[in-house]
């Protein structure tokens, strides 16, 4: 049975929840129950998700052709 954990406990679990690190079904249910009843925490989670997405989009880089060739040459010598 779920119960409201309050904002302070929800904030403690924020990143663990977002990062898929809350593995106890009861903890997940309690957290999501709180999100369903707290506009502030719900908005924060949405903001954090958007921030994560933006960070992934900006910080992921493709390696250059020169680097791939260089690494390929290193591996050719193995």
């Amino acid at each position: 049975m779920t119960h409201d954990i309050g904002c302070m406990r929800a904030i403690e679990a924020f990143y663990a929840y977002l990062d898929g690190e809350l593995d106890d079904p009861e903890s997940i249910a309690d957290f999501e129950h709180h999100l369903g009843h707290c506009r502030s925490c719900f908005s924060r989670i949405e903001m954090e998700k958007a921030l994560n997405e933006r960070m992934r989009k900006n910080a992921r880089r493709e390696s250059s052709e020169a680097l791939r060739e260089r690494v390929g040459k290193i591996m050719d010598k193995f």
Partner: protein
Amino acid sequence: MTDERTKAFFGTGVEVNIDALYSVALRLTRREADAEDLVAESVAKAWSAIGTLDDRERFRPWLFRILHNTFISDYRKHAVRPDEASYSDGDCEDDELATLLNEQSDDFLVWWANPEREFFNNLLGESLLAALDKLPEAYRTVVVLVNVEGFTYDETAEVLGVAPGTVRSRMKRGRTLLQKALWQQRPDSTKGANNDS
């Protein structure tokens, strides 16, 4: 052990991870040429150490651990350090952290929800990387591994050689510092009536 099948396994593993290796190396060194050198050196070291890989399922964290260790031993002292001191790296108890996150996020949320957000979306991309690069290394590395490259807390702990609980606390503090940095460097036109604390 270093037979053709091992070479093929290693080659595929490097190929699959080379963009991620470069992305992490770039956030560690903050200089493209150094990031490429770091990746190349790490791949060579990894092959030399292939005999230490006990479980092939753990190839990815094992490979990134070599990258991280190589950064520490050969690159850290030369790494670009943009104004890290402006973000306190001191001890922070969990309850203090929760309070900081709670108070700061309210202001951040108002800013994030600003109807003019689209206007500075492009700038935010640059601001985000600048803020990320200014995080103290311990937090920056955890945020990049977890949020950008999708490592679990256990894998990140394996890469860094720390306890999973340390990863969890560094994530909370790193993300809080990142928001604080974004909040502090937001465009002047959006500061309005909000307090800049």
